[in-house]
Structure formats: C-alpha cells, structure tokens
C-alpha cells in the first residue's frame, strides 16, 4: 500500500503537472503585474481622412480606427449614413476635424450615447479667420458665415499640436495607455518636424515676391500663414455665387503681381478657374488637394508632399 501511495505521489508530481503549475503561477503573476492590459483597444470612428491618419499614428496598436469618410470623398458634401451612425454610436471615441467643418456634427452629437466621447482635433490649432473678401470664396456659405477657416490640416505645426492634444484626450479615456499615446504623438511629431523642414527648404526655391497661390476656393489660409504665401481664390461653391466685381479683383491681383500660374483642385469644378486662366493668360498648374481628401494620398505625409511638390514645380525659379 505504501508502495502504491508512493507511486501515486510520484505520478501526481510528473512533468505535465509541473508545467500546469508553472503556467498557473505565471498567469496569476501576469494578471497582477498589468491588471488592465487585457482592456480592449479603443474604438475610434473618424470623420476626415487626415484625422484617420492622426488617430492611427497616435493610437498605434491601442486603437481600432473606423473611418466613416474615405479618402477621395467630398468632405463638404459628406453626410453620415445610417450605417455610419451605428458605428459612431458604438465607438468609444468620435474623432472629428472640428472648427465647424462637420456641419452635421451638432445633430450627430445628440444621437450619441453618453459613452461615446467626441474629440475635435482642430481645437488644438490656432484659427485662421476668413477675411470678408475671402469669405466669398470659402468652400460653402456656412463656413464663410462662421468666418473661421476649417482647413487647419494644411499646417504641419498645427497637425503636430493636434497629435499631442488627441494623445492627451485618448489618455483620459484609456489611462493605462496614456504614456504610449504620448510617446506615439512625440514620435510622429519628430517625423512632422522633418516634413516641415523639407517643406520649408522646397518652398525657399520660390522667391517671396512670387508666393501667390491662385486656387479655386479659399482653403489654403493655414498653408499661406505658415509658409508666407498670399491666397487668391477664384470661385466659391458655385460660379453663380461670386460677383463679377470680386472676380475682377482676383484678376487684378493676378496681373498686378505677375502671378504666373493658377492651381486647380482635386474634387473642385475647374470651369471658373479655367476661364480666369484663359482671360489672364497664365499657366495651369497641377491639381492641389485642398480638402485633405484624395484617393491618391491617404496619409498626411503623402498629402503634404503632393501639395508642396505641385506648388514648387509651378512657382519656383526656372519652372
């Protein structure tokens, strides 16, 4: 009997038992070492392609991003569908561009449950006001009435500030990953610094007296502020809205400053710009991405690089 008991004891302490015991010890230890690491990733629904990229860069592996607007869609005509509303309501965070871009946002907020937090990334960026004249060339009358230019993503330093702001807001909702969000924002910030240095070096090829940006609508206020350009928009949301008086002013500015080129925009009606180009006899440049939404440039870096290269190729000495 004693021998049998001994045999049973030996069998009970065999290799598989030890393995199970070791796994159990590590499992319990792992849980106590990081009790919230098992929290599911934050679900972030986004309302603009550039904000989608921001969320991915800052959130990293700690977020799952659901873009409600895809690159290439028209940001001024976008309205969330019923399926979009379902996604928004079930998300932890609804990340908007802000500064009044999403005219539907106040109505959308009312339909959300209390557990969905709305963050407007543009809140971190110092606003550019639309002048009374440029307001006529704004993307839509509602934006002109608000007199704040909503196209803040044209500012690289602004995007860096927005990244730091969004990281702090993510950290409030997911405190366990607060440092990870801050680290990601800082890392991306360094890449944005390099992008800005490159942009400034490229733009230094354009004489300051030639830094005029003739475009379809007044979307480049932040770009002009940061890089020392003057914006000359041509048309508003529809050609009928712009008076001949202001078109004459735009033509006068182009002639007075010997502006050599006008830039059409992706997703914009080129007719008004084409007629100005023909009237004044200037070159037509390649198309700029004004609204941050183009299927060919789904990341922020690709978007800014595209625009800088187009502008420099149109205006630099020798172009």
């Amino acid at each position, binding site marked *: 009997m004693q021998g049998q008991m001994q045999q049973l004891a030996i069998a009970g302490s065999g290799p598989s038992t030890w393995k199970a015991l070791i796994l159990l010890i590590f499992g319990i230890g792992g849980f106590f070492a990081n009790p919230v690491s098992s929290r599911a990733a934050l679900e972030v629904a986004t309302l603009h392609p550039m904000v989608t990229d921001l969320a991915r860069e800052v959130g990293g592996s700690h977020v799952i991003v659901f873009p409600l607007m895809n690159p290439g869609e028209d940001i001024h005509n976008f309205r969330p569908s019923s399926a979009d509303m379902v996604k928004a309501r079930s998300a932890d965070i609804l990340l908007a561009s802000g500064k009044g871009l999403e005219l539907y946002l106040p109505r959308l907020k009312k339909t959300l449950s209390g557990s969905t937090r709305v963050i407007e990334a543009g809140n971190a960026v110092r606003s550019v006001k639309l002048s009374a004249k440029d307001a006529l060339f704004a993307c839509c009358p509602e934006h002109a009435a608000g007199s704040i230019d909503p196209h803040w993503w044209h500012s690289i330093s602004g995007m860096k500030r927005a990244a730091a702001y969004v990281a702090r807001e993510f950290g409030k909702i997911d405190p366990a990953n607060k440092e990870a969000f801050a680290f990601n924002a800082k890392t991306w910030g360094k890449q944005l610094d390099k992008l800005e*240095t490159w942009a*400034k*070096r490229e733009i*230094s*090829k*354009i*004489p*300051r*007296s*030639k*830094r*005029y940006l003739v475009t379809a609508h007044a979307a480049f206020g932040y770009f002009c502020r940061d890089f020392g350009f*003057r914006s000359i928009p041509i048309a508003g949301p529809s050609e009928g809205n712009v008076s001949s008086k202001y078109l004459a002013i735009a033509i006068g500015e182009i002639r*007075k*400053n*010997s502006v050599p080129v006008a830039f059409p925009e992706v997703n914009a009606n080129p007719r008004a710009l084409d007629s100005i180009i023909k009237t004044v006899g200037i070159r037509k440049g390649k198309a700029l991405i004004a609204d941050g939404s183009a299927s060919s440039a789904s990341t922020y870096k690709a978007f800014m690089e595209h625009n800088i290269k187009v502008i420099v190729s149109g205006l*630099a*000495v*020798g172009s």
Partner: protein
Amino acid sequence: MLIVVAFFALAWFPLQHLTGKSANADPPQDQHQAAPSQVEAGFTIRMISSHPLKNVYLDHLGKRLLTIKDPGNEAEIERTLNGIIITEQEVEFWIEAELKNVPKSGERPAIQLEMIREGLENTPISVTIWGQSGESRIETNAMIFLPAISN
C-alpha cells in the same frame, strides 16, 4: 463769389493730401505689395557660430551658393558672394549646418549670419539662426531685410 470758390479750391488739395484720402480709395495695404523690381548684387557674408562647425551650406532659390567644409577653428567665417538676385527689400537663404559635436543638454546652438551689401559696407545686417538642444544639425531659412541703395 469767385474769391469764395478760389478759397475752397486752394484749401481742397492740401486737405486731401493731409488726410490721405482720394476720390478712388485704394485697397488696404497688404503684406505683398506690387511685384518689386529685382537686382543682382554682391555680398560679403560673415558667420559666427556658438559651436565649432563641421560644414555649412547656403542655398538661395534652390541654388547652392556656398559650401564650407571643415572650417577648422575659424571663429568667424567670411566669404564673398556675387550675383545674388534680390528684391529691393529682402533676400532669403536656406542654411544647413552641421556642428562638430552635439551641444550639451539645454544648450541651443546659434549661428549669426551677417550680410554686407556691396556699396553699403557701413550698414551690415545680421540675423541669428538657432538650432535645437541636443541636435548637431541646423536646417532653416533665414530672411534678411536689406537697406536700399539710395541714388
């Protein structure tokens, strides 16, 4: 009657000049004036760096104007440049500089760039460009506003 009309006529033009108004108001002054004329000019450029330099490059409108490699222990670097196109007021350079050593934490490197326009040797203009603490590379643009040569 004629005396009254003459009086108003004599008063009208000086008053208009003093108030700055005219019958057709010009639009408000803007940062960009009418396209200024461009001239070519020669400059002496002097650089004083807070930290020893490994190399310095100076570009203007995308063209490399100056390359200085391993200037040694020169405290001041002076070079002459000709044929720079400037507007009447300003010239912009792009500067890249690499320091021999990484600055200590909390120390920001600086380079003073002084420009002396040919014919205006008694009115040098300088600008200071700053690097970042902990980085041995400085890359930035520098605007220099120049005094005009009076004829």
